[in-house]
């Protein structure tokens, strides 16, 4: 066991757990200021955007990555289930890497 890694995990747990637990401990605090609420509404999208770019583009060709991500977004917008979408993306990437 690497102690620094486990320490990192525990540090992450602390921050993550507090954020998840606060509304469970104080159910009445849902009246946060509208400005904060608006910030919290765009944070997930901003986080996901920064998680995708640039790291998604690196292992396989840029065009294949862009095509897979575009299909993923379109299928989800059409209401296709998350699991199915992820499995399609895996299959599509495998086919792209193998046959192109």
């Amino acid at each position, binding site marked *: 066991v690497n102690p620094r*890694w486990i320490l990192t995990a525990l540090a992450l747990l602390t921050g993550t757990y507090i954020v998840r637990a606060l509304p469970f401990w104080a159910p009445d605090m849902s009246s946060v200021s509208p400005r904060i609420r608006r910030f919290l509404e765009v944070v997930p999208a901003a986080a996901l955007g920064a998680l995708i770019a640039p790291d998604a583009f690196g292992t396989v060709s840029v065009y294949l990555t862009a095509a897979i991500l575009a299909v993923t977004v379109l299928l989800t917008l059409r209401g296709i289930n998350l699991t199915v979408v992820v499995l399609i993306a895996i299959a599509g990437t495998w086919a792209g890497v193998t046959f192109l």
Partner: protein
Amino acid sequence: MKQFFSGLTAAVPIAGGYIPVAITYGLIVRSGGLSVLDAGLSSVIIFAGAAQFLAAGMFFSGAGVLQIAVSGWLLNLRHLLMSSVIAEHIERSVPLRVRSALAFGVTDEVFGVASWRVASGGTLPPRFLAGLEVGAYASWVGGTVVGAAAGNVLPPSVRIAMGMALYALFAALLAGQIREAPESRRLRVILAALTAGGFNWGLRRMAGFDPGLAFPLAMIGSALIFTAFPDAGNPGDTDEGEENR
């Protein structure tokens, strides 16, 4: 008990999405030089998919514990909103220790299933939520251990394809955010994501920033810009107006 099993059953689609991603995570931790136990323990301790990938990436690039913790915390701030939606549907009579335990398992996917159930008119009994979380947690931890222990027997093409699973999951979650956003805010959500991606790209590839620094800067920078940005089709929108929604 019946409610618990019904929760477990509802976790099956989550497990289907988690297992390939968890296997990939296990593989990454292992290929960075850590042990199977290290990989498994991190999933047992944290149970936050995206933050764990972020942590592994930063850890292997030499980032400090505090730097990783802050980035992961920022990334998981989104759970504040998700938890408050779920907590609203848990009865007040449920004791604090049960609430505290249930809070541990609120991930994006658990939230997705729970909020869908609420939206379609169902209730959210604590036992159901417990079953849902246990099912999701078990598949996440199990997948991590399998990936760390045996992931390297997979052929390289399959490993590359499974690596894409993570980004597909992020893209699908982003599309879900876009779909769920009220129409007046949809454009803002899309632009916030594109801007954050663009910032992160620029900071990393052009300015040569360290990923641990570029990620929070890009995320907060973009979120602040679009917090100040008024809603589309409602240019006179003020905070007061929003309170009356």
